[in-house]
């Protein structure tokens, strides 16, 4: 128990003191996670919505695949991205292995299945409700996609937050493709893993508390935002 309180005090001290190293790690964590969540949503929300309303051969198989990818192990994604970006790999010429863009790519690939699968379910439920009305108004299924995405925006917002959470808490893939290079690709989670391995448990725990506080802050802000817009749209 004493250890935990000591860590809590250390966490507050680190935050209050504005430790430059900590700030750099926090900033990088936020930057890569927000970028990958945004990229993943830009791809996965329309993708999920199209699968929800379109009818085509192999749709059911695709849905099973999308749902299965929810359980994609992050180290496997990390390994695949590593192989792609490594010097001998097909994208080796980019030279971005062990840089923040590599982390963004890995996290985006991890978040896409989750957002796509959940968005597909959400939009399909909305489509069930809207289908006859929209068909009556001469709206074709693909034209309904932006309509449904907009009308389901509150639920989709929660899904996007969950995606951000997955990106933010990711460690396995980030370690592999980022390399946890001090000052370059060290983010909150890899720093915690490193400090734990080095036996600096209070510092590791303190970083964990900081991570929790940031996630809590983002979700609180999102909740306030959602609460503020919800009654205006019914």
């Amino acid at each position, binding site marked *: 128990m004493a250890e935990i309180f000591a860590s809590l005090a250390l966490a507050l001290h680190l935050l209050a003191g504005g430790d430059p190293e900590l700030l750099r790690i926090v900033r990088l964590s936020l930057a890569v996670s927000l970028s990958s969540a945004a990229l993943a949503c830009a791809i996965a929300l329309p993708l999920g919505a199209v699968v929800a309303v379109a009818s085509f051969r192999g749709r059911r198989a695709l849905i099973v695949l999308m749902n299965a990818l929810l359980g994609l192990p992050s180290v496997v994604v990390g390994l695949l991205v590593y192989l792609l970006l490594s010097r001998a790999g097909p994208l080796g010429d980019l030279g971005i292995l062990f840089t923040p863009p590599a982390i963004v790519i890995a996290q985006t690939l991890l978040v896409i299945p989750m957002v796509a699968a959940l968005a597909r379910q959400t939009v399909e439920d909305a489509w069930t*409700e*809207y289908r*006859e*009305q*929209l*068909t*009556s*108004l*001469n*709206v074709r299924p693909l*034209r309904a996609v932006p*309509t449904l995405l*907009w*009308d389901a*925006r509150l639920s989709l917002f929660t899904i996007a937050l969950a995606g951000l959470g997955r990106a933010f808490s990711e460690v396995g893939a980030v370690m592999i493709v980022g390399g946890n290079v001090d000052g370059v690709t060290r983010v909150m989670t890899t720093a915690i893993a490193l400090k734990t391995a080095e036996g600096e448990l209070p510092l590791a725990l303190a970083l964990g508390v900081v991570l929790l506080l940031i996630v809590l802050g983002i979700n609180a802000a999102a909740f306030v935002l959602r609460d503020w817009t919800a*009654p*205006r*749209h*019914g």
Partner: protein
Amino acid sequence: MASPAPRDVLPLEARALTVRLGAREVLSHVSFRLEPGLRTVVLGPNGAGKTSLLRALHGLVPAAAGTITWGGAPRPRGAEAMVFQRPVMLRRGALANVEYALAVNGVGGSERRRRAREALERAGLASLAQRPARVLSGGEQQRLALARAWALRPRILYLDEPTASLDPTAAAEIEREIGAIHAAGTRIVMTTHHLGLARRIADEILFLHDGRLVEQTPAERFFDAPRSEEARQFLEGELPWSTA
């Protein structure tokens, strides 16, 4: 619509129309002809197939057999609109709901805004233009649905129980608007359980029973002296409470 169909979509004619929902045949070999200028009310007991008939005419459920023609030709795109018993409002303002319907049907720019505003004014909803459609009352939502359908200038308007679950004031408002839409030249095809409303609105009655069309009769004659035994029993059974 943006460019109204030049050809005439009436008469609307169904020949041996059959509709199945799963294994159940909800409409069996229904044939009729709807001439221009009249208001048709579809009557019948619960489960007679009234809603299925409207949905089939509007193309929301496929015909298992039989044909439907509009002025002798296939369904003209954009010539019809429908007001559902429980209309779905988009999560946006009342005016934006009407503008959306116009936008997807190719009405753009200032014309879209003008027509949407005009439709809201006709429905007495101008003061609620910016209000989120989903927080409107049931009666207001039904009027908005009517305004949204009317803004599309349909040649044929289907209404499924438009006054169900509305209080008398809201129902009277809907009735007045249906009258105005008819007067403006739109062919009205409506289902209702409310015989008083049917009496006031209908020019002719399509009476369905158990998925079959039992009679198509001018409204006055139907209420005074229905031709079929089923209709006579229906009127006797319904009258004591529904014209009160």
